[in-house]
């Protein structure tokens, strides 16, 4: 298996453009959890001319809503949620400067195009690996919309968060290509068996 690349947030434009679809990465630095409800509210604030609750330029967003933190832990299990639900918000978030998004599952063509336009990347984390990922979280703090409970925006400090570059800034993606390659491999094996 290829080497794992370490990346640090906030991600610079140059660093984002170096990443290639299919690469395994470990992410360290600040990331912000946001789901559907937080996206809708944040964009409403921007539309009303209010400042965003955190600096969106170069920011990393993680599509996740954690389970409650047990005593002695900064956060409960916190795996990625389904990204496609955020597709309608993503081009706007990218135009505001977001550089890295982490979630699970494929993205629509508008998002892939918008990632390329703004030189940003989309990473796939392992859906369901919530305890494994929580171990990478050093601290967590609710910074906006506490009434949304698990859907509030949290600022996380993470170390070595494992993910795969699923869509790179050049518009390459791994879901379609990975499925196609696997399908061909399966067919070849069936024929030679």
């Amino acid at each position, binding site marked *: 298996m290829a080497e794992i690349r370490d990346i640090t947030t906030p991600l610079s434009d140059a660093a984002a453009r170096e990443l290639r679809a*299919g690469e395994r990465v470990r992410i360290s630095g600040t990331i912000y959890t946001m789901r559907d409800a937080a996206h809708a509210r944040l964009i409403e604030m921007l539309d009303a001319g209010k400042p965003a609750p955190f600096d969106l330029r170069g920011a990393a967003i993680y599509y996740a809503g954690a389970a409650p933190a047990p005593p002695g832990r900064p956060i*409960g299990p916190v795996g990625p949620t389904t990204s496609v639900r955020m597709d309608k918000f993503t081009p706007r978030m990218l135009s505001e400067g977001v550089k890295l998004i982490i979630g699970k599952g494929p993205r629509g063509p508008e998002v892939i195009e918008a990632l390329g336009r703004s030189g940003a990347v989309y990473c*796939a984390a392992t859906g369901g690996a919530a305890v494994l990922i929580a171990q990478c979280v050093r601290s967590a703090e609710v910074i906006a919309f506490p009434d949304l409970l698990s859907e509030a925006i949290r600022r996380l400090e993470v170390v070595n968060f494992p993910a*795969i570059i699923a869509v790179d800034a050049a518009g390459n993606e791994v879901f379609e290509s*990975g499925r196609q390659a*696997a399908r061909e491999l399966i067919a070849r094996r069936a024929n030679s068996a």
Partner: protein
Amino acid sequence: MPRIIQSDEIANRVSRMCRDACCRLPADLLDAIRAARQSEITDTGRDILDQILENARLAAETDAPSCQDTGMACFFIEMGSEAIIAGATLGDAINEGVRRGYTEGFLRKSIVRHPFQRENTGDNTPAFIHLEQVEGDCLKISFLAKGGGSENMGAFRTMVASAGPNGVRDFVVETVERAGGSPCPPLVIGIGLGGPMEYACMLAKKALLRDVGRPNADPMLAELEEEILDAVNRTGVGPLGLGGAATALAVHVEATGCHITALPVAVNLGCHALRKATIIL
């Protein structure tokens, strides 16, 4: 003589069951994931399956829910005709168990009160309950913690009677391909055939309770399960949709009677963290 079961006892046992099921993935599921890891053909797929197994180990060891989405609390209950519940209704007892289990167990509360107003109920109630009366004086309670990622990618279609097994197979493959990585494959696929539409949907979910990979007792349905599993695992969707052989771990079909005009088909996708448990009181 009817047997009396106290509603408190039901609430206590249900509370415990919710916590256990969310923190400890069932052995039959883990065996199936290990087998899939052995035969996975892509590096990414193997890496993901390793992460999934490691995550399950950590969750059990630290008494933490294996996935943050601890789901909708779904129940299938068989109540003996000789059993009587004292203290509260069965529904209230189950909801009390869910409330306690999800609160005391640090499980995520993922239920909103209204589809449009979307205020979180704060305790993961209401539970969603299917009740059936059976012979005897026992109460058998099966629980599924059904996360949004997988539940949202299910599908229902009323096919024409002549669509037959091939029509069902093609519809399931189409559903799995469309869902891609969103429902967290490798999946356990529940399929409900027949009935009016809500019955097919109920059977599709109930099918997820069966031991992973145990075939239907009806040879025709067992053959269909095998055929669909084979077709789904040739799509290349793979673990988390990133490409691979392990798209599904098992296909479980349940069937019942239906109208002369129709072949209703419901598909309920279970994620790789299929959290289920059964208790008998």
